[in-house]
């Protein structure tokens, strides 16, 4: 499982941006739970990886922040900016190319479905 986590490491930002594109605004804990749900527990984003990634993307202008009072505390929601939407499309294309190339290496006779 640990070796698999290393493989996911480089695509963390792309995964976060894709989730935000699909779900509008999300908060940190919600992102970790969504990833766990989608991957049936195979991928586990730790707080130590997630929040620095979110803050970095916010500083780069890809994410915007919204505060809301929920259940007696303040919750910080993240959503994509206009630049973030463009960047997500660009990163998804890169990731798809990567997956296609890896698929060719791993199973040369198998054609990827996308």
């Amino acid at each position, binding site marked *: 499982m640990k070796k698999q986590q290393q493989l996911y490491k480089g695509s963390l930002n792309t995964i976060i941006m894709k989730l935000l594109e699909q779900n509008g605004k999300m908060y*940190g804990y919600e992102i970790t739970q969504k990833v766990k749900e989608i991957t049936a527990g195979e991928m586990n984003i730790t707080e130590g990886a997630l929040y620095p990634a979110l803050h970095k993307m916010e500083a780069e202008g890809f994410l915007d922040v919204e505060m809301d009072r929920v259940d007696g505390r303040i919750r910080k929601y993240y959503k994509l900016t206009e630049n973030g939407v463009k960047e997500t499309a660009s990163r998804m294309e890169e990731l798809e190319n990567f997956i296609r190339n890896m698929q060719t290496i791993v199973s040369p006779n198998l054609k990827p479905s996308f």
Partner: protein
Amino acid sequence: MKLTTEQIQQVDQKLIDFGFTFMDIRIEILDHILCLIETKENLDFKQALDTVFEEQKDYLKTQKLTQWSNVISQRVSLLKDIFLNPVFIFLWILSYFIYDNLPYSNHNLLLEDLDVIPMAIPILSFVFLGLYTFVSKKKLQVLMVRYLP
């Protein structure tokens, strides 16, 4: 489990005691910790609180160490937005041009009436652009929102 106001305050105080000084950093960590506590349905609040803090101690220690650098980088980013704003840079250049070309005899006399103009333009532009940047980036939300009822 649904947490009461007093329980939320207790968790917040525990984070303050842990060393989280800055509210804008602590807000997010508090929400995350509370979400984790809320999932511990088979434990009472005190047990859930201790369990979550134990599980998250490495993360909390790292965050406590980096909170200063996080806050400084946020403040620097805000200042960059002001000082690297093209309008602000234009007004600084305009001020220098006015100062250099005004028709008075001694450039060093600060109390000459016309000397106020090249000082007033950058000062006023800094104030207005600073306010605009601050409000437009929603930084005000962090200060204005009271997270404890």
